[in-house]
């Protein structure tokens, strides 16, 4: 059998490519691939066709249709009985089963960050419902409803965004990039922000429920936060000690500092869990108690 020079050259090229280029893993979809960076609406429909099946409001509730992939990935689509590319969206790679993962797949890493300027929203949505009791006063609860008696929840979907940002108020629903920016690398979003005073209860504060106040009474930095980056629990100790360390009222902080004086291994438990309560109290705590700061190791 005679092999033509052209076939030999093609074979050589194919082998070279196979040796020098890393094999593409088609089971992993990345938005950072250059060809996947077209306008979002190239692949995603907003809202998706049958949004009402899984959502109470118009939303992107499903993966893009096959057309979005086939236009470029025809060879990968029709490769073997179980093409690896199918597993990006489908839980079973079989032509007889079209079951898909939940959209978006909770097991996959996040590829986009979320931009949310609290400062602008505080201005625009500022609610002034004088006729209602204080707990209904502020607008934070539009997005941050109670999750447990202790903590508030953060939005997990578009429900609290689209009722304003649907089609007229930028960034509108089709302008995904207005809020979602491609991250430098896939990441796993932290489930919860770190809690320092984990025993605080938003619904607490004794019989009068004095903790039920306007959010910005304690979260003093939130009205100036222009993005979610670097957002941190911003409650100063003074927000607590206005009541919890006041002469003639309560001395919850001072008492624990005195307890440390007597036993440097004492764990502060009134506000903190063991992991935080066993650390050195910060200088701000001593300042409130009108004492010079101390380290546990300095106590004999």
């Amino acid at each position: 059998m005679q092999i033509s020079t052209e076939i030999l050259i093609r074979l050589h090229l194919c082998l070279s490519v196979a040796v020098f280029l890393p094999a593409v893993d088609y089971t992993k979809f990345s938005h950072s691939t250059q060809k996947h960076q077209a306008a979002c609406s190239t692949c995603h429909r907003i809202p998706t066709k049958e949004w009402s099946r899984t959502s109470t409001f118009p939303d992107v509730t499903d993966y893009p249709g096959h057309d979005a992939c086939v236009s470029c990935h025809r060879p990968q689509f029709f490769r073997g009985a179980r093409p690896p590319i199918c597993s990006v969206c489908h839980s079973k790679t079989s032509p007889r089963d079209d079951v898909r993962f939940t959209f978006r797949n909770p097991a996959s890493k996040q590829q986009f960050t979320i931009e949310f300027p609290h400062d602008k929203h505080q201005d625009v949505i500022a609610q002034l419902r004088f006729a209602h009791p204080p707990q209904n006063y502020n607008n934070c609860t539009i997005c941050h409803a109670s999750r447990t008696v202790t903590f508030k929840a953060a939005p997990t979907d578009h429900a609290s965004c689209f009722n304003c940002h649907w089609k007229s108020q930028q960034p509108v629903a089709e302008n995904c990039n207005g809020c979602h920016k491609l991250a430098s690398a896939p990441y796993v979003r932290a489930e919860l922000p770190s809690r320092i005073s984990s025993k605080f209860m938003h619904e607490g504060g004794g019989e009068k429920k004095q903790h039920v106040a306007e959010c910005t009474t304690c979260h003093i930095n939130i009205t100036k936060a222009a993005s979610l980056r670097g957002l941190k629990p911003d409650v100063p100790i003074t927000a607590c000690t206005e009541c919890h360390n006041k002469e003639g009222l309560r001395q919850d902080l001072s008492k624990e500092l005195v307890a440390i004086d007597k036993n440097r291994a004492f764990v502060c438990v009134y506000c903190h869990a063991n992991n935080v309560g066993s650390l050195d109290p910060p200088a701000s705590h001593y300042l409130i108690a009108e004492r010079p700061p101390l380290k546990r190791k300095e106590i004999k």
Partner: protein
Amino acid sequence: MRLVIFFAFLLMVTVVLAQNQEPSARPTGVLRLRVRVKADDSLPLRGLARKRFFLIPGTLEQNRALVAAIEQQPLTTRDCYYKQHGASAALINWLKEGDCESVYCRSIEKEFVTGSTAVPEFAIAFAKSQKEFGNEEIAREWLTTNLNPDLLDGFYRDRQSVLTALLKQGTLGMIQSVMTDRNGTAYFTDLGPGTYVLSNLIPTELGQSMVMWNCEVQVKAGDLATEKPYLMSNRKEKNVKCVGVEKPKPVCAAD
């Protein structure tokens, strides 16, 4: 000789690394504002809720151009803006009831989208939303998506453009802003020690007048404002450190 150079290099690397590892602890201070106002002399002082204040680095003298621009800016009241943009009397009243600057201020209840108490703009947007979403509840909750942009957030955008223009005046550093809470309290944190100008930049509507605050404040390093707050008011009373200048509301061309 080579050994000496090597150790010198090693020492330099160690110093550089040590410097990078220890963040320089910049002493900062806190400014706790308490803004209490009277719309009328017959009324008691009350906290000025939900108003934004700005902290501009430098003295009043250093920010003279900015302060002059603040004082000379043309003023438009909320009611006047909405009248000029053809808002119905019902919408203007709805905004006034909640002291709202935009329709995002509070939920739009059923009574305002249908029936005799309906606000015309809301009723039209509600009808459009019903067609679009096919669900009465979503149509009501999302009706702002079908409102005329000028009535939707035009007043807010107008204010923002005034602010942006004002802030383009030469300033000496980063300007911070905060919004007061229900009691009229707000905090500026992580402030470098020095002199600042505290201003609301855009006059605040209060009863029949508009109030402008432009005051010089000192921030000391390590001052966490745990004791007395910085009191602001439109009345010269005891302990008030910053008294606002009141002007009558301007006449509206649409009246």
